[in-house]
């Protein structure tokens, strides 16, 4: 399946260097380094408790690692917070869904447009012409994303009332609305059936293909990961045990051991 990519894979855009994170005495991540190249689909896989979600939380600034650095777009970021990363063009979804439950689908996606909203509350209160203009732009973009994800018919439904699979889609939509250069997806296909998974894969590849957005995803399902990602990094007990193309990783003895178990 060789096809011409509109956005060629480029230089490293995100670099994780020697990250160590522990909670009290429990080591979640030990001295882990890997990078993500521009425009690629990068997967982080590993058994339960391997430190995958902790890794994303370190990149995004929710957790503060005890050691190590994160460089984004060639800059080492000294004090990472979710807000700074968002402003730099990094967006994410969450493992256990972190949607705004009482807000409609459209409103959720509109929150993703926050960084493209420059007007302050006084201007909003007075509904100045520039507020209306900006709001229209943001709404148009959100509607675009909604039709891209094929969720037009539920756009006014409060998100809390939607089934799980659709909520995952909305969360992807919210991340897309930020127009970020890189999106971290924390188990975007967890708890989905085969059909929903196929749909989600299609959207991830389509976003990567059409917008050139770099995608970093955590996934359990090995089959899915091998199909859609350019490169895979395998974590086990907080350490990198494999890193490379899906084929390389598949034939890596350590990875096979970690997934299938070893005889002692």
């Amino acid at each position, binding site marked *: 399946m060789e096809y011409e990519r509109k956005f060629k894979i480029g230089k490293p855009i995100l670099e994780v260097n020697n990250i160590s994170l522990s909670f009290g005495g429990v080591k979640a991540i030990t001295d882990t380094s890997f990078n993500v190249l521009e425009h690629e689909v990068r997967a982080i896989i590993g058994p339960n408790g391997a430190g995958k979600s902790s890794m994303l939380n370190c990149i995004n600034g*929710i957790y503060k690692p005890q050691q190590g650095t994160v460089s984004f777009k060639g800059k080492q970021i000294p004090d990472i917070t979710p807000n700074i990363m*968002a402003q730099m063009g990094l*967006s994410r979804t*969450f493992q256990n869904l972190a*949607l*705004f439950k009482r807000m409609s689908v459209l409103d959720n996606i509109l929150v*993703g447009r*926050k960084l493209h909203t420059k007007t302050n509350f006084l201007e*909003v209160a007075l509904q100045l012409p520039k507020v209306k203009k900006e709001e229209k732009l943001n709404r148009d973009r959100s509607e675009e994303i909604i039709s891209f994800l094929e969720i037009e018919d539920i756009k006014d439904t409060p998100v809390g009332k939607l089934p799980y699979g659709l909520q995952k889609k909305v969360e992807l939509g919210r991340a897309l609305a*930020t127009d970020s250069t890189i999106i971290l997806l924390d188990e975007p296909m967890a708890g989905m059936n085969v059909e929903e998974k196929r749909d989600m894969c299609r959207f991830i590849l389509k976003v990567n293909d059409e917008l050139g957005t770099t995608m970093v995803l955590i996934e359990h399902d090995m089959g899915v990961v091998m199909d859609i990602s350019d490169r895979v990094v395998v974590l086990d007990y907080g350490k990198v045990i494999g890193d490379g193309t899906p084929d390389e990783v598949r034939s890596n003895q350590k990875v096979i051991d970690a997934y299938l178990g070893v005889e002692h």
Partner: protein
Amino acid sequence: MKPVFMTYTKKDLINLAVCMVLSVLVIPTFITTEYWYTSILIPWLCLALATIGQQVVMGYTGQLALGAAGFMAAGAFAMFNLILRVPDLGFVGSLIVSGLIAAAFGILFGLPSLKVRGIYLMVATLASQFFIIWMIDKFGWFKNYDSSGIITAQDIVILGKPFTTPLAMYFVCLAVTTVLTLLAMNMARGSTGRNWMAVRDMDIAAESMGVSLLKTKVQAFAISAFYCGVAGALFAFCYLKSLEPVAFDIKLSFKILFMCILGGLGTINGAFIGAAFILLFPVLLNAIGNNVFHGAIDATIISSIEQVIFGGLMIIFMIYEPLGMAKLWENLKQKLSLKLQSSNVKNLKSSLSKKS
């Protein structure tokens, strides 16, 4: 093609027109007794305004705060001092500045919300309630060294015209409330309101989308305190016509909290419904006591019954309709329109069958 975005739908404009006609034309023509203005309509508007303030911080931003009356006191006494000491500011100017002074207190007492949440935040915000009242009592300057404890509020003069009759004061309250309600609606429906609700529903995700928790929370507290401050100033100048810190005690804060919850968290019209209910319900109970039982029930018992019913209603609403009376009203409207539709269909069917 239908427009993608409009600030006000046709329905909103109709609602606004109906409210305006009712409040500007119908009420002044049909209600002539002073009692209605001085004891019901004016306090209703003032408290509804304060409840909108409470809605901003609690209903929209999800921060449990309990100090609305403290900010009202700040606004009321700021108003008194501004009219006294800076007469050039005029009534409207003073009103805005007193709101801003209350907002400054709001920012100060909203800061704990960055570190504590839920019931602990509620306790922390209680500080505003006690601190502001204590400060006004402690330093005589705020009361212009008045020894009696109760100061008479100055007369309201706007552009050289006195507004002293109940009807005139009602119009003052109405104008201020209308303007501020529209502004609140604009914020709540716009990007500002979305940021508030995002922080309410899932703060970590909001932060990951670039919504600053610090800015959003402090902003909500400031706006909330501004509304409470303006409401407090109107409450003192149009309703109480006097200024005493005791009028803004914790009981009033709780009253506003109840109005907010019963009216429906996260709604603007709920503020008006909740305020109306809590103000009118005791009046209704008294009327029942006097007219049905002919005074056989003691007034103190009636006021106790009132408390019992409020408490019961709070529990019932929390369990069955956490979105409050505004939601009930919405449901009722929906049912009515459905009925209307089905009756239309029936009429159509019967007319069709007649033809055939």
